[in-house]
Each structure stands twice: as C-alpha cells, then as structure tokens.
C-alpha cells in the first residue's frame, strides 16, 4: 500500500493540510512537539492501522467538534479513497464513498515503528496484548468482531462484580468468545515462533529470540474457571482470568527478555516484532505495507541502522520523521512541521 494524497482538517494540533505524497522515502523533520508524530498517526489510521486504547476525542483539535481525515490509497487493484470523520466520540469510515463499519482493507496497510516500541519488551503485559490484538484484527476480520463483543461482555461482568449483580449472566459469552480469541492468538504465535529467530538474526540480533503465550486459562476450561472465581473476582472488582489477562512471553537465548535484555537487545527485539508484523501483513494481503518510522535516530547504533536502511530500500513507500533528516540523501519529498503547519521543502 502507498498513500498518494492526504487531507486533514481539525485533526489534533495540525493545521488544515493537503499533501501529495510520492513513492519512495518521505522525510518529515521538525522540532519536538510540533506535530510530526500526529502526522504519522493520521497516515497510520488512514492506512487501516489499529491503536488499542485510543481515545477518539483526543484526535479532535482543541476547541473543535469534528476531525476529518482522508487519503487516496494505492492498493494492488488501484486507487481507493478512504475517509474518516470523528465527532461526538464516534468514528465514521467510508471507502470509495461507501460507509464501512470496519475497515474493508484489501491491502497490507501500514506498520509503524515508534520510540515507545521498547514497551513491547519492558512494558506491562498490556503492551504485548495490544500488539497481538492489533495485528490479529488486521489479519482476521473475525478476530476484530469477536474481540469487540468479548470486551463488551467483560466490561459488563466487571460492572456486575462491582455493583453486586450476578456476574454469571456474562460468563457464557465470555467463555465462548474468549476461547475463540485464545485459539486465534495461538495460531498467530505459532507462526511467530517459526519466523522470529530468522527475523531477529537478520536484524543483527544475537541469541535465539522465542515467543510463547502465557495463558491464565485453557480455552476449554474458561467457563468452569470463571464460575470458580466469582467470589475472588468480586473481592478484587474485576475478572482475573481470560485472554484479557494473558501475556506474550519473549525470551532471548532462553532468558525472559523483559527482565534480562539490555537496551540495545530490547531495541532489536522490538524492531523484530515490527518486522514480523510487516512480513505477516505482506503475506496476508500480497502487498507491501507502508512503513512509518517515528524518530529514525532512535534506532541508531550503526548495525541496526544499516539493516533498517536495507528494509527501507526494499519498501515501496516509507515515511520517516526526526528533528533533522538532512543526512538522508535519498528522500523523494521533504516536509517540515512547525507549530502544526506542514510545509513542503525544496
């Protein structure tokens, strides 16, 4: 996928923006806090990216009511017009003029490399669950549907626990949909485990990188275990087992990466997870995802940077940001973001 034209109105701190974007490397420079990352985020959302836990209201410019984002996307079968409008806590999507409930994305979308990707290694389990959920939502429409029903049932059971209402009413739906989420995650993680060692080695990582699910319940036992934990869950005020409590264990040369990896090792592990995302999306949609890299110099360290440049050179379209990108010779378009205004530089 590539993005050919971008329109933004009333989006975060960015001024009204109309941009034509060429294939190849697009370099966005600007000081911190000027809106570079917001610009990448807009492109990511338009390319069908999923950001778990995103607050829609935060996307609307301060004092505004509506945020509007649109893009002409180049898919394998031609150009497609995608529009997102956000107002009153709701997001409306359309593709080629037809309202879309969820993204009917027919191509690889985008992969976004962020400075806080280190959270994938060092952060709480939630960061790794978000990674799995966001990736699975893009690989399988079914997963996204089941996840949203599961999350709704979970909110209701938790509310019931706190309000002294009967939590059991929500358990059949939780165990039915939860079991399906676990099975789909297992399938993805099996594929990850096959690919990760090579991906990691190609990015210069040392030691075998392994991934494995840490589950709080077996899918077949979920109904029984939820029932067995009602009293305990009532005391704690939330549901303590199920896929919303599971984790993705990463280990490097046999040792848990969260506890034992150095900062440099963690960078390579995080980069490997993003590379894996890129590979799986490419496979699924027979199309190279758009690559977005926030703070290119955050990836410094010579060998990692060389390998990243290798990745960039084999991707049809890449958007990178940093405070200074004058050293990147191969840029096809240079943009500068200053106080929310996006300007094309000659």
């Amino acid at each position, binding site marked *: 996928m590539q993005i050919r034209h971008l329109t933004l109105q009333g989006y975060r701190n960015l001024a009204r923006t109309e941009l034509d974007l060429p294939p190849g490397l697009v370099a966005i420079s600007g000081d911190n806090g000027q809106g570079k990352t917001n610009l990448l985020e807009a492109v990511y959302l338009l390319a069908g990216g999923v950001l778990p836990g995103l607050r829609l209201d935060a996307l609307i410019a301060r004092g505004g009511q509506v945020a509007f984002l649109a893009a002409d996307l180049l898919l394998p079968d031609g150009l497609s017009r995608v529009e997102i409008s956000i107002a009153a806590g709701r997001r409306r999507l359309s593709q080629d003029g037809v309202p879309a409930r969820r993204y009917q994305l027919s191509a690889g979308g985008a992969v976004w490399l962020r400075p806080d990707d280190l959270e994938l290694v060092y952060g709480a389990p939630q960061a790794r669950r978000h990674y799995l959920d966001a990736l699975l939502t893009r690989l399988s429409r079914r997963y996204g549907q089941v996840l949203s*029903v599961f999350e709704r049932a979970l909110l*209701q*059971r938790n509310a019931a626990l706190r309000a002294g209402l*009967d939590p059991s*009413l*929500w358990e059949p*739906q939780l165990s039915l949909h939860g079991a399906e989420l676990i099975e789909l995650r297992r399938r993805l993680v099996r594929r990850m485990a096959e690919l990760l060692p090579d991906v990691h080695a190609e990015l210069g990582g040392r030691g075998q990188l392994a991934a494995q699910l840490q589950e709080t319940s077996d899918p077949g036992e979920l109904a029984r275990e939820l029932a067995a934990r009602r009293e305990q869950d009532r005391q704690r005020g939330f549901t303590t087992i199920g896929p919303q409590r599971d984790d993705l264990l990463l280990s490097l040369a046999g040792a848990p990466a969260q506890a034992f990896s150095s900062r440099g090792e963690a960078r390579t592990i995080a980069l490997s997870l993003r590379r894996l995302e890129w590979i799986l999306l490419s496979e699924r949609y027979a199309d190279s995802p758009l690559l977005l890299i926030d703070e290119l110099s955050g990836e410094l360290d010579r060998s990692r940077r060389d390998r990243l440049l290798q990745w960039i050179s084999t991707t049809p379209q890449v958007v990178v940001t940093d405070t200074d990108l004058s050293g990147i010779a191969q840029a096809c378009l240079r943009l500068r973001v200053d106080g929310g205004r996006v300007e094309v530089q000659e």
Partner: protein
Amino acid sequence: MGTPSSLAQLIRELSRLPGIGPKSAQRLAYYLFGQPEQEVARLAEVLLAAKRDLHDCPRCFGVTDRELCEICSDPQRDAAQICVVEEPGDVLAIERSGEYRGLYHVLRGVISPMRGVGPGSLRIAALLERVVPGVEVILATSTTVEGEATSLYLQQELVPLGARVSRIAYGLPVGGALEYADEVTLGRALAGRQVVS
C-alpha cells in the same frame, strides 16, 4: 450571523431526540419554520394529544391509548404464546412480519450493569406473573451482549415456572438489534426459534 434564539432553542430541543444529530435538527427546524402556521399547530396538537392519551399497557407494557392494549384485548390472539421484547418499537417490528399471532411482553430495556440496570429495573416480575405452566415464552431480545445476557436471565427464571422457553433464531449478525431487522428476517427468525426447555 448569529442564530435567532428561538430558532436555536428549537434546534437544541430537536437534537435531543434519539437518532437526531445537530445537522438533522437544523434541517428539521428550518423545515418547520417554512411550514404554514396551521400545519405547525396541528403537529403540536398531535404531539400533545399523543402524550396525553398514550400510556403503558398494564399487562404487556407496550404503548396504548386504551385501558388494555389492542393486542392484549384481542380474543383472537393466542394466549399460550408470549413474545418477550426489549422496547415497544420491537412489537411493531414483529407485527409487521405478519408471522406471529400470540401476545407480547415489553421489558423496557435490557440488563446492563454498566448503566446500573439490573433485573429489578426491568418489567420482569410482571412477566413472571403472567406465566402459567405450558405457556410458550419466546425470548426475542436482541443479539447484543446485553440482549443475550437478559435472555439467559429470563431462561433461568422461567424454566422453574413450567414455561416452555424458546429463543428467537436470528439470521442476524452478532450484535444485531431487533429494530434494524427487516420483516422477512424477523419472520424467519420467529419460525426457526430454538426450544430452550
């Protein structure tokens, strides 16, 4: 140019109606403003008369302008079937399908702890009073998470009373609300209901 205050007030009131956004409210307000005065007066009277004359049916909790609603007081309807729905609008949707000749019971909502709604806030006690052994109760709450949980609660309460319980078999997508189902789908859903007990 500022909006005159009475117009702004009208827009504000209209936009409080369900399903009416600010843009639709504005369009309606300008439309009403463009109508002859007697048309607007007639609309106002109809609204007031509806509010004055309509009330809950004391048996099924549908909406009626009679003592007992048209369906509850119709001797032709099959009293051995009670179809349980969430809202009064759902009765109309099922009636339009033309496939059902039994009675109704309107819960006036669904169980939702997130909104502070437990079984006690719904018209469930009144339903249980209507049930005698052998009556078939058709659970036609929606397939949303809340509709499914409410249906489960009702099953647990109804089975010990000797009711025959069935759940409407939706060909609807997961999360579908009854209101949005077309007549053909609803007719089929009723015909293909699953016996729970």
